[in-house]
């Protein structure tokens, strides 16, 4: 006798597919807008510069329209607006995690820019591991180890001088930011 599917699992799967659908609608809309903007931008270039972009954009736009029609046909199966609202209200754990890691990566850039590469890398690695619930000792040791590894490999072995940061550069006399 075959097992009946668990209704909870079915519901979870339906929600997951709904989330993916909503995400794709947003992604395709974003890509479509970029292509349209690029198309209008390309009309301002000389024909020699714009012909290759046009050769690429025309079939690309057609493909986006075809795919958008496919998604439009499936819209009744899911409720993208509700899913998007849910995601922005913080009720989608996966989306929250993506936002979290993305925000930390953006913070990494700022930390590197202001504090310098080593301090930025150490700080953000430490914060990320603590956010994930790792113990202080492990997080500190790992962050120090990673920073040291980067120093040894990049600066010592490959002679790549990493960015010192606005603060150190200011005290070194640099005034171009």
């Amino acid at each position: 006798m075959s097992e009946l599917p668990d209704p909870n699992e079915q519901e979870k799967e339906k929600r997951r597919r709904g989330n993916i659908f909503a995400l794709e609608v947003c992604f395709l809309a974003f890509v479509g807008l970029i292509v349209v903007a690029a198309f209008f931008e390309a009309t301002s270039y000389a024909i020699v510069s714009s012909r290759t972009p046009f050769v690429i954009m025309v079939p690309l736009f057609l493909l986006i329209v075809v795919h958008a029609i496919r998604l439009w046909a499936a819209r009744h199966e899911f409720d993208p607006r509700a899913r998007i609202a849910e995601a922005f209200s913080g009720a989608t754990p996966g989306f929250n995690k993506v936002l979290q890691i993305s925000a930390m990566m953006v913070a990494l850039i700022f930390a590197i820019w202001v504090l310098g590469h080593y301090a930025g890398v150490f700080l953000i690695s430490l914060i990320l591991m603590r956010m994930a619930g790792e113990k202080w000792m492990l997080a500190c040791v790992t962050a120090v180890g990673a920073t040291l590894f980067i120093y040894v490999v990049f600066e010592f072995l490959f002679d790549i001088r990493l960015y010192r940061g606005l603060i150190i550069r200011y005290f070194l006399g640099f005034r171009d930011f």
Partner: protein
Amino acid sequence: MTRRGFFRGRAKIMGIIEGMMSGFFQSISLAVFPYLFVGALFGLVIGVIPGLSGHFAMAMAVTFLYQLEPGPGIAFLLGAHATVAQGGGLTAILFSTPGTGQNAATLLDGPPMRDKGEAGIAVGAAMASCFLGATFGAVVLALLIPVMREVVLFFGPPEVFVLAFLALTFVAVLGKEDMTRSLIAAMLGLLLAMIGVDNVTNTFRFTMGIESLGDGLNLVPVILGLFAIAEMIDLWVRGGSLAKDMPTALSAKDTQKQIFQGIGMAFKKWWLVMRCSAIGTTMGLIPGLGSAPASFVAYGHAKQTAKDKDSFGKGNIEGVIGPEAANDAVEGGALASTLAFGIPGSSSMAILLSGLFILGLETGPTMLNDQVDLVFIMIFTIIIGNLIGTVFGMFLVNPLSRATSIRGTVLVPILIAVIATGAFSGDRAIFDIGIAIVFGIIGYLMKILNYSRAAMLIGFVLGFAVEKNLYLALLLDGPLFILQPIPMGLAIVTVLFLAWNIFTFIRARKGAM
């Protein structure tokens, strides 16, 4: 054959032999071998960690190329790529978790062998098959050099332009992702390559007033974003340990004995290895197919030709030997089309091509005629790299397997730090770290929405070549360049191939309804 033809032919063969000797001695020289060694070990470790694949290893390896000479750089890059599948086979067998997508077929018989107490035999057979398959692919590549040299002379700007679209179509259609989405990704990649200064008119295109985009998007940050940061975001979101179960240590003595037994069995079944390697190499020549389909086709072939078909799926060693031989043999075929035409057929080859650009090397007739020693460095790197992977894999089964117990929450921050540093190191620009992060988010979205990142990267890598060759084709032959025999033939193949696949797709959908 005329006297002149005889001497010309002999000169060509002597040139290849000279290149082969030079390539071999360079591969084992002190200037190159250490990089090959480190690259091979790096690839082995990356291959063991589930979720990190061959293109991740190559993406990370590319960041170091700015500081290396061509020989060591190629050895490091290809050495890393050569051993990823071996590491992946190890985890597929020991933990039922393929380290890379190309080891998925090994799941069919590897874990059942483990469950029967034959884990060591499976590991030994897998490693030896990888080495033999890679050697086969490398030898085929070497034998193809004289053929490629002649064929490539027929390909001028019109031919290369149309071939690029053919390759992109193949990659988009034959890849595991959805066809429409992959075609969108491929065209997006081509469009991204248009950002920057147009070399003909010096017009700034799509730079949005950002000075840093004047030279276009840098390859390394784009690669790191699409294939490295995207994986990190995925690991972070998935959370938990990388392998579902903690690795149980195998008894060292028993394991070694079994491993040698497994190696012996791979050599004993040399004819199966040769056939599956031939399948892998042939499929590697076709852009877009990749090693995962090759390993499944090889598995199917091994099963069909086996005496006891029923034992497949229950721990038959041939079910491990076949796919592992094929997925390493793919590289020889894939390299052939990449080196000859500069048209990569997979994300790994696109990253390799990017690496060659960074090293100042140009593929095509120049490389095949004047730098054939570099081609042979690649060939010997594949062979020696796989040998290193086999030897170390055999003796480091237990320590390597422990790498899978590293938590994603510890691994992700470390790797993001290293990736960000790698993105910075090319042009010493913080802007490039931003590019890597943006493409990391895009790459992650593409991964979960089933858009092909490989197609996007290949489109991006080919974009410059497409524009340059279109410009030259129009200059030399006018708008009717497409009517020449080879471009016409390639264009017809592209259209027919696409039309056939669209027709099949529509028919399948109607059948499902």
